[in-house]
């Protein structure tokens, strides 16, 4: 193996340092013939070493120093990508619209109940609504709204000959789309004479004050 390597080295030396027509040229001339090969190779090695020993560490140190700023820039870019001003405006508009569906304060449930009473009366039913007191821990901390509850009793007005259909018509108007009023219970009873009475429970969404 050692001899093979030696022979290979000698062959390479012979080829790379060949002086045409002068196989036994002196070493000095052979070395001069080698120069055109040695110069670029040495230059490449020096360039590589310079790059590895000087340039690369310097660049790395600068990059490390600027790393927090780069991270900040990246964070800003990510935040920009995550949303847009249009999207924010649209979300705000939707939130405002949703907010208008809720009662701004619990006291205003009286207004809602009065309105329901009027609607029922217009539909041929006499309604009596009563707001129930809101429980102390009525809402969780992470929810933006809570519900106020109320119950009511409905009896048909005198002269209401279509009690059942008018009740259905009233119930259909019970939950308007622009107000968070939901029927949670309905109990309808009819006696032997066919007189109907209804009891309802409802909930009204109320905004948690910020």
């Amino acid at each position, binding site marked *: 193996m050692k001899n093979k390597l030696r022979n290979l080295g000698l062959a390479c030396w012979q080829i790379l340092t060949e002086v045409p027509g002068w196989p036994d040229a002196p070493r000095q001339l052979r070395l001069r013939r080698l120069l055109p090969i040695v110069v670029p190779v040495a230059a490449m090695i020096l360039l590589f070493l310079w790059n590895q020993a000087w340039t690369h560490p310097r660049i790395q140190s600068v990059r490390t120093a600027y790393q927090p700023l780069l991270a900040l820039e990246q964070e*800003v870019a990510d935040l920009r990508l995550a949303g847009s001003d249009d999207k924010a405006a649209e979300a705000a508009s939707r939130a405002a619209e949703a907010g208008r569906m809720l009662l701004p304060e619990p006291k205003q449930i009286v207004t809602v109940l009065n309105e329901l009473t009027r609607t029922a009366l217009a539909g041929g039913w006499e309604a009596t609504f009563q707001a129930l007191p809101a429980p102390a821990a009525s809402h969780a901390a992470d929810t933006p709204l809570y519900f106020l509850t109320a119950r009511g009793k409905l009896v048909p007005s005198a002269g209401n000959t279509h009690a059942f259909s008018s009740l*259905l018509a009233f119930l259909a108007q019970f939950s308007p789309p622009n107000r968070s009023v939901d029927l949670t219970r309905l109990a309808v009873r009819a006696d032997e004479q066919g007189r109907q009475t209804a009891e309802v429970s409802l909930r009204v969404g109320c905004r948690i004050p910020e």
Partner: protein
Amino acid sequence: MSDQDEISRLLAEAAAQTEAAPSRNQSSDTPVGLASATTDTSSDAEETPAPATIRKLPPRTGGRNSDVLGLAWLNGSLHAAAFRRQKMTHSWSCPTSVRTVAELEAVIDDALASVEFAGTDTFLVLENEVFAHQADDIPVFAESAQRTYLKSRIQRHEKENGPVLWVMQPLITMHQKQSILLHFLPKSFYVELHHVLLKRHLDLTRILPLIVPLQYELNRIPAGKNTTVIVAAEIGTSTAVVAGRVGGPLLFSRTILADLNREPSRVGVEVNRSLLYTKQHFESAASSVWLMAQNGVSAAAELQAKCGAGKKVVALPSTPVDWLQSAAKLSPQQPINLLSRYLKAKRRTQFIRGGVLIIAWLGLALMISGYFHAANAWRNERAQLTSLHDRETALRADRDRLEQRNRATERDLAFANHVTTDRLPPVPASLLGFVAKLLPEGARLVEFNVRWDAEAGTWSFQFNGSIEADDETARTLIASLQDELAKSPLRVRFNENGRVLMVAPLVTPGAPEVQRFSLEGVLFEK
């Protein structure tokens, strides 16, 4: 700069060094180092002094062109001729005897000046005592086997005599045997000779044995095709004898160490022997003998006397310059060239070295280019980093604003979703209306309850009523009602335990039978 230019420059420098500090072991004119073809580099510096002569080389006339220089060096006589497109332009013959390379070097510049040669391509027709020729008969092998056989034979020869340049020339094939002629030239001689020529920008591309131009001349002899003839040519102080068939293969060749002009009778005896050998060995008698000499008329008579009256002896006035012209007409790729193999190896070495050179410089160029681009990229990156540093405050403000914006967006969306998705659908009214529509004739509801169970997230219902029908009909009607409700969009599921059907007591005698029912269950519609 070509290799030759570079080597010339190196040699000139070496010569200058030699002049300044003469070698202890050699004369200035004889490059001992070149006489040795060893390639052991370990002893180069010590054993191989600079081989150049001190004498300053005369400048070459004119510029480089594609002319070809032919040298005929035949047993001490040296002739040169310059050819342009195979046509001789000038010729020169050395008036003195030239035996060694050193003597050749002494006169070569005169020859170059005389023939006004300005090219580089040079061929040499050689015949001297160091140039050996061995005739042999070998079995008719396959080409590869023949090559192996010859290589082993050459290796044996080189072991005894040192490295040689060699070439095999096939002769006639008879009785399943191939006659060949091996030409050996010591490599040291070639190197020494080549060195002398290289210094003068002469690129020696062909070394031809004399037999090559003589065969060319033989084929031009005005005799019938395949006629066996013998050619005797004057080569300095010797005579070459070649036997062959016109337009066919050569039979043999030999060199007689006798001058055709001075010892014609001895040459005649040897030619006669060749005639007899030809007749006996090749079974074809040569019909004529052709004398190729500058002045062969007197010798022809002597040969005629020795060879017998039946043989035709013809003198062809011919000189080595004529043979040079014949050699010049041969293709440069013709196979009987001692340098073909050596030049091939040399070209391979030069190709490898050139490849390494190109790769090294190309690699360096690519590396520099790569680093240059990397440096540019880094410069841009650095500028960006500096700009980033300047914008740090703005970036932080941006980040805070965007975070706030995105948080607000998320909060708003969540709020809007919460409010809208938390609405309860008007299930009680829908179910009441739906049940009222599906109630069969004769049935009426007495009590109807629907309640939202916030914990379970379902609606539960329970309704009671009565139906005027017998038990079986009532069951069928109630089952049908249940089925309709189960298939409805409200996705009603009844509690099996909650279904009750009982006969109501008759209040009025004779009144129709009334069945009371009670149904309860849940709705999966939120």
